[in-house]
């Protein structure tokens, strides 16, 4: 079980680096889809089946198809001008990111890391109620206001996208 976690973690890291280094943006997009699938597998291992399904449907399905559509609409012939180039300022950016990453990693690897009190839903309880049923219950009781607000956000995003992308008629 834990071997699979490391396997998927390794594949997802390699594919994420692929997003960074591939010259052709279509290759980057496909690499990102692979990363999303690996993360979905890790979510299943962490007992978050609902998140894994949403990850595959919404991220790997809808959002990445949208990206690929836009890439194909806007594809330019010369990808060389967008290739990964290093100069002094970008080297500085890499160095700062590396320092921040090491800072965060040392905090995460600290064995004295303490968490608060455990919550009300251990794995047995989640499996008893059912992961999706439990999320539905919580969404429509405790989190009903954010749920309604997020639906307005989606509506605004849809209308905004249509208006922004519309061709202006002079």
């Amino acid at each position, binding site marked *: *079980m*834990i071997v699979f*976690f*490391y396997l998927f973690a390794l594949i*997802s*890291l390699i594919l*994420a680096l692929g997003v*960074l280094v591939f010259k052709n943006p279509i290759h*980057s*997009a496909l690499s*990102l889809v692979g*990363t999303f699938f690996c*993360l979905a597998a*890790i979510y299943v*291992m*962490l007992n*978050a089946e609902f*998140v894994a399904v*949403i*990850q595959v449907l*919404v*991220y790997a399905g809808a*959002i990445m198809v*949208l*990206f690929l559509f*836009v*890439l194909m*609409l*806007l594809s*330019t012939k010369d990808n060389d*001008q*967008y290739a*990964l180039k*290093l100069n002094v300022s970008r080297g500085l950016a*890499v160095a700062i*990111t*590396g320092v*921040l*990453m090491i800072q965060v*990693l040392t905090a*995460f690897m600290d064995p004295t890391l303490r*968490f608060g009190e*455990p*919550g009300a839903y251990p*794995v047995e309880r989640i499996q008893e109620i059912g992961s999706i049923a439990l*999320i539905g219950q*919580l*969404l429509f009781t405790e*989190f009903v206001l954010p749920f309604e607000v*997020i639906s307005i*956000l*989606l509506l*605004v*995003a*849809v209308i905004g*996208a*249509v208006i*922004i*992308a519309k*061709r202006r008629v002079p």
Partner: protein
Amino acid sequence: MIPISHVLVLSALLFSIGVLGVMLRRNVIVVFMSIELMLNAVNLSFVGFARTMDDMTGVIFIFFIIVVAAAEAVVGLSIILSIYRTRKTLNIDEFNLLKW
């Protein structure tokens, strides 16, 4: 059981790759993909904490993060489309419309 620190380390590494993508790449769509990668790294740490803390709030948060990410992708890509119509480029260094 998968130790929480390993999940968090994977999440931190993915987030750093996303940050590097935003800072090093010049194609605006690849920059956008790097932002999606960072959002996913955050989701991963939410799932890890939800699992370790026996709490469902992290999973509910991911639901909202994914909705916001979808809205962001839709609006951002339509902005890129409309900028491309006038500028005919995807290079993020040439997107200086707001400068005067």
